[in-house]
Structures are given as structure tokens and as C-alpha cells.
């Protein structure tokens, strides 16, 4: 079995699972409880927060736990909108954001906010100059993803930050869900970034847990209210076992990060080289440092993406159409559409996404399978 769908979700690491189980058994208390069982759970919670903050080179009070990437995106976007509505109701984002961002924006539109969805060029990049032109006196938020989940394009975060340097009151949010563990710290440590969203299950932590970085003194309205957990910013009994597990997963993914990212890039490079040898192939994820090392999006022209995915599945290889969210309904990719890719080509796109456990041997098997599938359809469509 070859699992090349790590951008959809990753397999939990064994030792991370052990942490989850151990904390569930030994430190199951409610961290808000004032007795020892609660205090022990609270200690684990705060230690995990400290570990995550250290690994991200931020302060522990800048880390908030959420139920995942979707909640993080929703919270930061709507929380900013509610907090800053008195100052303006204009928001800038891009056409290639994850649905968690796009649909939060759509909801805000119905509440009277005005959203500018920046276009991207043919390669999938937002143009910082276009962004600069879109800024208005009433702009309160700019939300641009770090790594696109469909083609892996790394957005020009530093350049955007440079533009925003002149507008210190605008909140700058970056969805970094696909950027973790890919040796992109230099990007994520951009000091102008105010908010970052992360999701545990994309880096071998459990599902249903994630975290948000919120720069100190940057204000947001809470999104989940109630018992006042997370300094009254995110209520709900804390998921201590999953949080401790996520802290461990983050440490593991950050260990030898550069080396692991290079290995994924090497696999991707091999795949690109082999696949592009064939005619009628379109590669959307290039082999340069403007693309993440783990995502490879390509088309076999004329064959629908789902068909390719199922053909690989028959060979026990798991890839996806461009993203898990769009794959179920067989919709064309929103990113490719925004890039101006013709519909027929966009519909034939598939995504291979790697993690640090994938090997060159798997890549060779993949290429062998690719050739078989390719020739099968070549005959069919000849």
C-alpha cells in the first residue's frame, strides 16, 4: 500500500498515539478543576502550550487551541471582522484559499462586509502589487494562505508583509495548515504576520485538534463562548490528551525538518521528471522553491481526475483529486480555475501529496503504476 494523500490527512504517529492514550488514562481531569486531578491536567496543557510555542518561536500566550484548521480560519476571520467592524468592513483574500476561508468570507458578505478576492496568475500566485492596489482606508484584514493545498504554490508572504508594513492596523492572517513540517519556518516567522492557522492531523497528530498563533496585543472577538477557557478566547473543556499528542507530533515533524523536506522534494522531483516524459501531461506544481516540497498536482489530459484516482486505487496507491473537500462532489479545482486553466484540463487534475515517511521505492512503484495507467488510457482514447 502506498499512501500519497497526506495533504488530505496523515496517519497518526505511533508514539503520538501512545501519548494520547497515556494522557487520557493518567491525566484525564478537567484542567479548570481546582483539585489535583485538574491541576495535573492543567500542567500537561500548559507544558504542551510551552513546547508548541518554543517550537514555533513564539510566546506561549500567543498559542490558542482549536478543533482544527477550519475552526482556526473561521475564528480569525470572523473574530477580526467582529472586532474591527467599527473601523471598516473591507477584507482582502485570494481566489485560491481553502473553503474554510472562502466560506467564512461568504458568510461575512451576507453580514455587510465587502470582500476582495484577489486573482492569481497562471502559475497560481497572488501578486503583491495587485494586493497593494486593493487596500482601502476601510480594509481591516488580509488573509492569504502560505501553501496552497491543491498545487502547493507558496504565496509571496514576505512581499505581502512588505506591502502591509505601511498599514500597521490591518490584521494579516496566514492559513499555514499545509506549511507545517515542510521547512518553511523562514516564511512563517515573517514578523508582520499577526495570525497563523494550523491543524494537527496534517502532521501526524490526532484529528480534531489544531492551534492558532495570535500575536500578542492583536485583538479578536472569541468565537466559542462559555466557560472561559483559553483566556476566554475559546471556551470548551480542553482536549488535553490531543493537545499533548499534538505537541509531540510537532516536535517530531520539526526534528530534522530540512532533511525530511529535502527528501520529499527529491521524491517529487523524481516523479515530475518521470511523469513529464510522457506526452499529454500537464504539471501544475513546479520543481522550484516557490512550490512546497510535498504537493504534486498534474493532469493526464483527457482523462478525468476521479478515473485516475480509482485506477491508482486498484493498484493499492492512494492519491486524490485536487483536494479532499472538492473531491467528493467531483467539482473542478477552484485553484486551477482561478489560474485560468481550461475546465477540461482542470477536471483531469490529480494531487499526489507526500510526507516524511514516503520513500523513493514507493515513488518508483508509483511511476510503474503510472505507466500502466497511462498506456491503458492512451489506448482507450487513441
Amino acid at each position, binding site marked *: 500500500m502506498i499512501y500519497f494523500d497526506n495533504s488530505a490527512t496523515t496517519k497518526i504517529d505511533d508514539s503520538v498515539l501512545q501519548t*494520547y492514550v497515556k494522557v487520557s488514562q493518567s491525566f484525564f481531569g478537567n484542567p479548570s478543576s481546582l483539585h489535583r486531578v485538574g491541576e495535573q491536567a492543567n500542567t500537561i496543557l500548559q507544558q504542551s502550550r510551552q513546547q508548541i510555542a518554543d517550537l514555533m518561536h513564539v510566546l506561549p500566550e500567543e498559542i490558542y487551541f482549536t*478543533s482544527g484548521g477550519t475552526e482556526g480560519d473561521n475564528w480569525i476571520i470572523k473574530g477580526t471582522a467582529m472586532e474591527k467592524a467599527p473601523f471598516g468592513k473591507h477584507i482582502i483574500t485570494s481566489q485560491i484559499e481553502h473553503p474554510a476561508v472562502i466560506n467564512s468570507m461568504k458568510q461575512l458578505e451576507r453580514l455587510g462586509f465587502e470582500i476582495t478576492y484577489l486573482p492569481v496568475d497562471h502559475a497560481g500566485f497572488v501578486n503583491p502589487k495587485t494586493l497593494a492596489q486593493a487596500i482601502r482606508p476601510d480594509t481591516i484584514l488580509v488573509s492569504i494562505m502560505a501553501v496552497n493545498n491543491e498545487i502547493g504554490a507558496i504565496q509571496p508572504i514576505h512581499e505581502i508583509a512588505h506591502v502591509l508594513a505601511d498599514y500597521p492596523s490591518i490584521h494579516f492572517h496566514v492559513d499555514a495548515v499545509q506549511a507545517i513540517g515542510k521547512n518553511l519556518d523562514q516564511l512563517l516567522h515573517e514578523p508582520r504576520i499577526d495570525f497563523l492557522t494550523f491543524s494537527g492531523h496534517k502532521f501526524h497528530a490526532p484529528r480534531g485538534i489544531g492551534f492558532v498563533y495570535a500575536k500578542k496585543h492583536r485583538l479578536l472577538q472569541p468565537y466559542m*463562548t462559555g466557560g472561559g477557557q483559553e483566556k476566554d478566547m475559546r*471556551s470548551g473543556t480542553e482536549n488535553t490528551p490531543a493537545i499533548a499528542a499534538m505537541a509531540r507530533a510537532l516536535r517530531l515533524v520539526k526534528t530534522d525538518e530540512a532533511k525530511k523536506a529535502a527528501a520529499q522534494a527529491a521524491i517529487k522531483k523524481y516523479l515530475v521528471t518521470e511523469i513529464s516524459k510522457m506526452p499529454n501531461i500537464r504539471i501544475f506544481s513546479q520543481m522550484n522553491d516557490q512550490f512546497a516540497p510535498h504537493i504534486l498536482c498534474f493532469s493526464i489530459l483527457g482523462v478525468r481526475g476521479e478515473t485516475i484516482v480509482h485506477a491508482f*486505487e486498484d493498484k493499492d496507491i492512494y492519491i486524490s483529486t485536487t483536494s*479532499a*473537500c472538492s473531491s*467528493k462532489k467531483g467539482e473542478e479545482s477552484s485553484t486551477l480555475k482561478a489560474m485560468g486553466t481550461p475546465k477540461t484540463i482542470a477536471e483531469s487534475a490529480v494531487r499526489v501529496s507526500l510526507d516524511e515517511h514516503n520513500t523513493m521505492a514507493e515513488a518508483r512503484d508509483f511511476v510503474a503504476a503510472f505507466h500502466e495507467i497511462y498506456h491503458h488510457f492512451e489506448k482507450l482514447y487513441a
Partner: protein
Amino acid sequence: MEHIYLDNAATTPMAPEVIAEMTDQMAHDFGNASSTHYFGRTARAVLDESRHIIAQSIHAKDDEIIFTSGGSESDNTAIVQTALANQAKGKHIISTQVEHPAVLKSLAYLESLGFEVTYLPVDKTNHIALADFKAALRPDTILVTVMMGNNETGARMPIQEIGALLQNHQAVFHTDAVQAYGLLPIDVEKMHIDLLSTSAHKINGPKFIGFLYARTGLNFMPLVKGGEQEHKRRAGTENIPAIAGFAKAVTLIDDTERANRQSKYHQFKLQITQALDAAGIDYGINGTLATDDLQHVMNIWLKGVPTNVLQMNLDLAGFAISGGSACTAGSLEPSHVLTAMYGSDAPQVAESIRVSFGAQTTPEEVAKFSEQLIQSVKSYLTKQKSKIGG
């Protein structure tokens, strides 16, 4: 030192079966249920089966169950989104003074947006009067949110009666069943409930997972937007292992087990009151000992002994109990529930503890607890007396 956990209303340890189920899910299955490939489909099958088990447990239809990150999210979604979706029909909401903060803070937010909320008072046993509810109901009421059972005293609210009264009314009926689920039989059809919140970690399931039941056809706006998971009503990659763990926890509590727990916990309450009586302790029960109420929560007024003294004392002796609810995160603020029952100056507000039982609690543990409680109360009162005397 032995540790005895009597704070199950705050959270419960996961059942071993639940841990086993989750471990299995996490170790062998890593499909994103939205993916179309084999792993994705397997994940979807687990999701569907879990949803079915859970829907059955409250007599709902499968697609009326929306998985959320827990009780707080369910409450926030149900209350805020229902009010926003229905504001054209009116801006009046009815609730009670003794709801969980997840409900009260959601209502406070709505008040800041111009909604009007009537908070029904409670009597000294923490129950609301149906007459008060009837009097509060108006043609422009759009939402009624009343908890099924209270987390500090176990008081059970007249949900079925309210549901019946709302039969021919436009108001949407939400109940926070976070404490009641797993102890009371729930039939959303019979009780005419439109929205219902639960949280898995209160019934020996995992944390950060719960569900919101939303009746078919309800005007419903999602809170968490994004991908199309949960029929577009709750976005985010589905937390399959936690959902499977939740379903496992639910299967461990069938009708018989639920009734068994209520009667087992009732015996625990009697065991404690008998011990206190026998020792001549001056105490009161905040709430009732009636079998109608939730039996896992017991709120005791120990006259003359400050809450924090007792709590610390018992903690040092190895007993985890609570001063009020855990959910006013780590704070020692006076309980809004006891205040609603007695007024803010009443001694009960400063001299009460909450004890809550769980599936793992044994009569021996309760006996040890009673003994320690009596000892702690007596030694504090003796010291006080000698201070006054000297």
C-alpha cells in the same frame, strides 16, 4: 495515596473500550472521510455507523446529528445561529438563570446585538416553574433554550412539558443535555425538541467531540464554515476516531445501564446523607434527593465550612470534588446557580461543594469519601470553636 475521583460532572475518564476503539481507529485508519478512495470510504462507513448509533440513542434520524467539537460549540451554534437565522420573526428568547456559561454567554452576545432574553428564575430546589415559562412566552419569541439537567445540582427541567407547550408556537426549542445524556431517556420526537447539545467527555467518551441534534427542516445556519462535511452544517475534516469513540461510549449505556446508573448514584446520595446524619453534621442539600433529578450530581451545603477550605482539605486527602462547576475556568467565583436559588448573600453560596459520581465509582469509595468529609467538617468546626472560645 489513593485517589478517588468524584468530579464526573466536570469530566469523566474514558472507558477502556473507548480507548481501545479509538486506538484501533487511529492506528489502522487514516482516511479523510471526504476522500473518494478506499480509506476515505472506510472512514465514511465508520462515520455513518457511529452517526446511526448516536441518532438511535435519542430517537432521531441519522442526518439530524451534526458532530461538533463538544458541548460549548453545540450550544453556541444552536443558540447564536438559530437566533440570527430567525430574527425576522422576532427578537425574544427565553432561557433560565441557571444555564451553563456556554449558553449564558451566547445569550449575552445576542443581547449585545439587540435580542431580548427572559431568564426564568428558579426555586430553592433549582427548578423552574412552568407557569413562569407560560407567562414569559410571547408571539415574538423565536428561541427557547432550557437545559435538561443542571450541572451543579442535577435539577431536571420540565423539557417534555415545555416541548408540548411549544407545539403550536414558532419558537425553536433547544435543550443543553450535556449532563442529562447518558442518564435520562431522551426521545426528541416525544419531547418535541428541535435542537439538543451533548458532549462525549461527560459519558466516558473522548474530549472535544459532541453532537448537536438539529431537527429536519429547521432554519439552520452553520457556525463553522468551510468544506462540505456534515451536510454543510459543520465544516472541518471529520474526527473519525473521536466520533467512533463517542459511539462506543454510547453503546456502553443502553436503557438498562442508564437506569442502573441512576439508581446506583441515588444509593450513593443516600449513603452520604445517612453518614452525615449519623455523624450529626449540620448540612443541607442544594437541590433535591428526588429520583426524578439527575442522580450523578450532589450539591451539599456544609453549614459553617467555607467551600475552599473543604475543597482543599478533601483534595489533600485524595478526593477530587468541585466547589461549583469546573467550567468557570479555574475561578473561585460564587456559583450563579446557587445565587439564583438563594440570593447572593445566602451562606449556601459560600459553603457548598459538588460531588459527582461516574460509572467507575464504587460504594467503598463513597464510604471513604463520607468518612473524610465528616472528619474534615468536624475538625474545621472544632478549630473555629476553639478560636472563638479562646
